[in-house]
């Protein structure tokens, strides 16, 4: 009888330095993304970290439409398209399906990585329910990676729950009468999912500007077993309106300005890492204006808007229960 892998996973040791990174590409050239698309880089690094015994499932969005149209593909590993809100269901269904087939002896028993990805529209908005459900099924190994380009980018930049305050999108064009149309603060997706799913083994935030760290988070999520979630911030030259050559730098700035903190929650333990850890330990953050004023989507910002944005980010760091992660504050004594 075939051996059944309860929560057995592949052994994926972290890459110790850039020279140790796998040379093979499992997501190769020929996709139709924009010049400088950081999300394409996330796909490449994600499967490079995962290795060849991996199945990738992709929700509709840029990373489906721009990657696999007209009967062509950049994928080397097996990949399947799933509906816009279905990354959670696809991850769970595939993991369960593989397990059943192995149990019945219809395929060789071996740990296969199951990764589902979705954009912020598909993950933070539409597919949130299914992702939440998946993160409660601790007997199935899967990773859901949300690549957050902060808009519904594929359909020409509509605002999502992940779009930052004040940004110009096709749904929030600044005008003469009202300068800011989008005045809601961005959803805190990774922390929300970590806080709400106590049996989810791993939740992490990553940025591909820190490629080795990012790949090691993917490796950790895949090797820990059970359902896991990664939130990646992806600069998008089309939606953020900047010169494509700045993609890498904008990712770094998002972290260094404290706009996008890097942390992981492993079995309920929060750890800041990388540049963010240094910030938590007292290294000064760069002013957010350095990040915002490099992007056309904030070109209409006045000093007042910049100050508001800075104040909100300061609050994340100075007043939150866990800096940059959990937005709770303790009630003042006696109240």
């Amino acid at each position, binding site marked *: 009888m075939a051996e059944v892998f309860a929560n057995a996973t592949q052994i994926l040791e972290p890459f110790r330095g850039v020279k140790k990174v796998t040379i093979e590409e499992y997501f190769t050239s020929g996709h139709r993304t924009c010049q400088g698309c950081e999300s394409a880089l996330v796909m490449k690094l994600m499967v490079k970290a995962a290795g060849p015994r991996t199945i990738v499932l992709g929700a509709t969005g840029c990373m489906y439409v721009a990657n696999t149209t007209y009967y062509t593909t950049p994928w080397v590993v097996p990949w399947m398209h799933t509906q816009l809100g279905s990354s959670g269901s696809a991850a769970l269904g595939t993991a369960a399906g593989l397990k059943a087939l192995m149990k019945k002896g219809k395929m060789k028993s071996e740990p296969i990585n199951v990764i589902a990805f979705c954009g912020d529209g598909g993950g933070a908005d539409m597919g949130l329910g299914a992702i939440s459900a998946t993160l409660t099924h601790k007997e199935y190994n899967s990773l859901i990676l949300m690549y957050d380009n902060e808009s519904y980018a594929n359909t020409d930049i509509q605002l999502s729950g992940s779009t930052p305050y004040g940004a110009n999108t096709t749904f929030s064009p600044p005008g003469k009468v009202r300068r800011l149309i989008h005045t809601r603060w961005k959803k805190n997706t990774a922390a929300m999912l970590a806080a709400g799913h106590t049996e989810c083994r791993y939740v992490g935030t990553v940025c591909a500007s820190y490629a080795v760290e990012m790949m090691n988070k993917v490796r950790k999520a895949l090797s820990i077993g059970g359902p896991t979630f990664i939130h990646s911030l992806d600069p998008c030259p089309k939606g953020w309106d900047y010169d494509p050559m700045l993609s890498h730098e904008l990712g770094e700035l998002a972290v260094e300005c404290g706009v996008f903190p890097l942390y992981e929650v492993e079995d309920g333990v929060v750890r800041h890492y990388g540049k963010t850890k240094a910030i938590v330990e007292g290294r000064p953050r760069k002013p957010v204006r350095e990040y915002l004023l490099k992007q*056309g989507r904030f070109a209409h910002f006045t000093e007042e808007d910049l100050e508001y944005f800075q104040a909100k980010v300061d609050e994340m760091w100075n007043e939150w229960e866990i800096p940059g992660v959990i937005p709770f504050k303790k009630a003042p004594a006696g109240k």
Partner: protein
Amino acid sequence: MAHFTCEVVYRGIFQKNLAARICRGIVLSARKAGRWGIAFGRYGDSPQRNGIPAKDFAIVADTQEELEQNMARYEPKEVDVTICVDDTLSKGVESWAWYGLQPINRLTVPNGTVLMTSLQSPADLLKDIHKKEAPYNLALIPAKASFSGLWVYKEDHTEARILGALAKIQPGFLSLDAVCAAIQEAEWGSELKAASARKAFERLESRPVKITEGNAETPFSFEKPKWWEMREGVSIPAIPIGKPMEGGKGYVPERNPYFKKFTTRTMRPVIDFDKCVKCTLCWLQCPDSCFDVTPDGLYDANMESCCGCGVCEAVCPAKDCVTMVREDAFEDNASQWEMWRRDKPAYMTWMGDKIASKQHVVRSHGFRFRGQYEEEIKQSLDQGGTEITAGIPGENAVGKQR
């Protein structure tokens, strides 16, 4: 009865609003001249991506019936005028769909016109523009590639100048007066822009191109799979894993055989292999998986897949090791590493020549800092450009700062 068809070949996102304005301007001018018209984009190019070549079309006809006849098609098979607002597209167009490489003049009718904005001479452009089996005219508006299609609008009058030039090329359909009247009425119009259109009309230079002239290369193409050859469940064959380079060392990833990025680029990296410290960052951070790992541990950007984003230049820690150079400085897509290995002194001469030209290494698209466009416009003013006063509501950063 007569009709006139035109295509605007442009770069997705960078010039999307510009192309739409040109096509709308054609239709509005046609209405001013008592004709009928329609403007539309090619569906296959949407949703658009930064830099990917795309097309918009405009058709003008004497009567409504004739216009309707010409609308009943997916996209025109031939056009009277091909308009190209970025001369790095003169090498041809790979759009989204199954086309392979389309020469820029492929749809231009015999004796039709290719109208381009360019600072290059016709002779230089014809090194890139493919030969055609019929004569046509090459009309040039002296200007660098316009990026006025971006969100934060860089107002440079390109659409007005194109419309003025068209009135000269197709006087039977668009009179200069009709064009100016339409420009003034459009939401992006102004007196100044009408003046730009007039200037372009007067100064347009055009020259016939003979069938013997042009780039003799056969454009890249491939067999489309027939529907019955497609696999069950719309499954697509995966790309095979790559293989080591010579002597079992290095690594070359396999690449999607159908979609190349030859013409997605406006620039490409030129690498000084002697300065490379083999840090791997360009290879690791390239979103298009372009780099072949050579047996000697260097990284060779493969021109089939490079889209010219410039990330490799941005991440390279070695000074002056990677330099992005404008695409019009190159005639082929050969491997730089092979050239370097074959003959190092010759490579150094070649490379030095490419990166020395200021004109070739200055990037001009995208938003890099607040006030950039205002600065650029001022610069072009200092060089004798027209003053720009009319901003576009919602598109001009200046107009938006209270």
